[in-house]
């Protein structure tokens, strides 16, 4: 029966309604969550705190409707970070406004039970009943690992069930058990003392007990997973491993820029078509201008990046599922450590090449608060795809398209150089922040499991892409949309007087602001028209291209920069163009990024710091570029 059909049935009052998944990192917990809930899942924050809460709903074959909470992977319920404090409080029912789960499913990787058993032993002190799920049972069987489930269940005193989260029907036994438990809930295994954070002595005792049970119930072949050992000989090799990593990054960027081209053209043509349609159906006036220039143009300019973001996340999700991302962090830890960054910052910074927003959200994998902040502070310096239209426009208009140094294209080289400057300045700034803000603190330890490799599950990757796509579109539909409305109003109002001969924007509030800013930006070679374009660029950098088009009163868009470029080449000196490029390498003007930083750090303080330091960098860089170019006679 479908989920929707069942929702319409009169609600019974089952005794079991809320369960939670808990387990070590890499135990396949999220795959199990996805198998249970499909797309019926919701990611939000816990009330009052900025910790991610992932909940889904599903139906058991027996018609039991369950809400399931996916808790972050952990080795112990002991809280090591604010995020883990929340997890602990949820499980213990101490978080106000959040009901404690009634049953805990402790998910374990069947091929690697040692640490999972220690976690189970710790969880037995909780008031809730615990069920141990032996996930990836198929891989364990394939490797010749046999687990005596009956004996394990007797030793632990809790139900033990095998599961294969990634295979259809692989959770049948588990679902049947949940139905059974809803009628006859198992008693909690707590001895009455309740849970307390285990100290070193308790951890040693628990691990010793776990090792005893492990030796008693699990038979393993003498050779551990040979495939992972063989693959790691190459992928973790000090030199070959780094070369492979570079190769993977190269393929990834090629894909992001070439595969995405067609769908991006489709989306932008689609929005153009809608704009034309609106022009035909509505009379020329404020409403049309609002719909076409404000709503369609604004949202379209952001939605057009969806293909690039999805392709980048496709690679990240597949590599993560395969088990490679931990290896990438291993290979990069020392290199990034030189700049004061944690090895785990590698993935968030990589995501920032698509857009700083998912990059900043991905910093949640970094345990240490300072390491996480350092990553958040420099993530906006990575060249996000929103800068590409601006770069393309200016390079196309001002950099001659000729070959240099045996076949390399000068335009391509400049583009590459801008990326390199972004990466280099991110590393340099993180070095500076570590020195200035956290001079006395040694770096946080790098402790990371390198899981066995496994084939990525298409379903898990698909669901991950769907969720990220939805989150991106929701943001485009809310934050960015409201920004665009404000900017449209600034650029449109007040209306030009009857008989005014200049372009309409000359009379608007935006033009007034542009002139007002002129004394600030004149020293770096910006005309007032550029100042005007910087204002809509606040919502999304790429909108600056459309805004320049409006200011120079010609119809040009990001995908047709030829004509606008021609006009700009007539209006600007090369020095001004280069200064604008330098400005955009650093420019802090992305309101959504600043809003995301505020949400992730819980205050405007860090957003203000990012805005301030990036503005200063952009100004200094543009100033230096402009005056150096002028001195070379390019003014």
């Amino acid at each position, binding site marked *: 029966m479908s989920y929707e059909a069942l929702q319409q049935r009169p609600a019974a009052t089952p005794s079991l309604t809320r369960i939670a998944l808990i387990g070590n990192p890499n135990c396949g917990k999220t795959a199990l969550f996805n198998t249970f809930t499909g797309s019926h899942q919701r990611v939000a924050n816990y009330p009052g705190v900025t910790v991610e809460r992932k909940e889904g709903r599903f139906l058991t074959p027996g018609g039991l409707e369950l809400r399931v909470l996916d808790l972050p992977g952990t080795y*112990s319920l*002991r809280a090591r970070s604010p995020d883990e404090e929340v997890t602990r409080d949820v499980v213990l029912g101490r978080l106000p406004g959040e009901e404690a789960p009634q049953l805990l499913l402790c998910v374990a990787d069947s091929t690697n039970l040692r*640490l999972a058993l220690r976690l189970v032993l710790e969880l037995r002190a909780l008031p809730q009943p615990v069920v141990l799920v032996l996930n990836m049972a198929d891989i364990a069987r394939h490797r010749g690992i046999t687990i005596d489930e009956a004996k394990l269940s007797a030793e632990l005193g809790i139900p033990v069930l095998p599961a294969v989260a990634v295979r259809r029907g692989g959770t049948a036994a588990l679902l049947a058990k949940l139905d059974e438990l809803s009628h006859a809930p198992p008693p909690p295994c707590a001895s009455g003392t309740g849970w307390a954070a285990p100290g070193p002595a308790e*951890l040693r005792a628990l691990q010793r007990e776990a090792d005893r049970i492990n030796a008693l119930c699990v038979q393993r072949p003498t050779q551990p997973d040979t495939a992972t050992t063989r693959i790691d000989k190459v992928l973790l090799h*000090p030199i070959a491993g780094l070369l492979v990593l570079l190769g993977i990054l190269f393929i990834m960027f090629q894909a992001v820029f070439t595969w995405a081209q067609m769908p991006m053209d489709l989306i932008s043509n689609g929005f153009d078509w809608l704009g034309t349609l609106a022009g035909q159906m509505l009379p020329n006036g404020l409403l049309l201008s609002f719909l076409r220039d404000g709503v369609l143009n604004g949202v379209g300019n952001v939605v057009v990046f969806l293909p690039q973001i999805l392709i980048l996340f496709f690679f990240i999700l597949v590599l993560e599922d395969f088990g490679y991302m931990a290896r990438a962090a291993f290979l990069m830890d*020392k*290199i990034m450590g030189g700049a004061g960054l944690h090895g785990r910052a590698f993935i968030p910074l990589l995501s920032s090449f698509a857009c700083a927003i998912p990059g900043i959200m991905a910093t949640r994998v970094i345990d240490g608060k300072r390491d996480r902040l350092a990553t958040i502070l420099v993530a906006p310096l990575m060249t996000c795809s929103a800068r590409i239209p601006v770069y393309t426009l200016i390079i196309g208009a001002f950099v001659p398209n000729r070959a240099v140094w045996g076949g390399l294209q000068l335009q391509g080289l400049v583009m590459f150089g801008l990326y390199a400057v972004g990466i280099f300045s991110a590393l340099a700034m993180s070095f500076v922040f570590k020195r200035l803000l956290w001079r006395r603190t040694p770096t946080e330890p*790098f*402790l990371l*499991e390198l899981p066995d490799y496994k084939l990525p599950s298409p379903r898990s990757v698909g669901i991950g892409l769907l969720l990220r796509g939805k989150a991106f579109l929701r943001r485009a539909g809310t934050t960015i949309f409201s920004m665009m409305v404000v900017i449209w109003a600034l650029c449109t109002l007040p209306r030009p007087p009857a008989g005014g001969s200049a372009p309409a924007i000359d009379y608007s509030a935006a033009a007034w602001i542009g002139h007002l800013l002129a004394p600030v930006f004149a020293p770096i070679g910006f005309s007032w028209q550029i100042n005007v374009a910087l204002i809509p660029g606040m919502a999304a950098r790429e909108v600056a291209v459309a805004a320049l088009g409006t200011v120079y009163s010609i119809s040009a868009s990001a995908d047709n920069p030829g004509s606008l470029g021609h006009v700009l080449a007539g209006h600007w000196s090369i020095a001004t163009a280069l200064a604008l490029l330098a400005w955009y390498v650093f420019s802090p003007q992305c309101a959504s990024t600043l809003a995301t930083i505020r949400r992730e750090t819980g205050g405007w303080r860090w957003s203000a710091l990012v805005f301030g330091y990036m503005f200063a960098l952009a100004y200094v860089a543009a100033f230096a570029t402009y005056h150096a170019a002028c001195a070379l006679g390019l003014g």
Partner: protein
Amino acid sequence: MPLVPLGQMPRGACGIIAAIDTTMIHSHLPPAELERRLLELGMVEGARVEIRHQGLFGRDPIAVRVDCHATFALRRREASAVMVRLLAPEDAK
């Protein structure tokens, strides 16, 4: 065999953990917390450790296989808290 800190062992070396002593480690974490983090990764006395891989620069970080089960990445700085009784190559087989 004498005790050697895990953080000073070469790649391929193998041994049995004899003690965890975090008091001399200059880490961001307080010694007791670092000890618990290492214990939570299964590095308890009696567990077997082997250095499988190491980074290019300064041979850091290292990938340690713990008790023939799981592999963990950590830096030599923190690994120096783990005191290991080395196994001779023939015993390691």
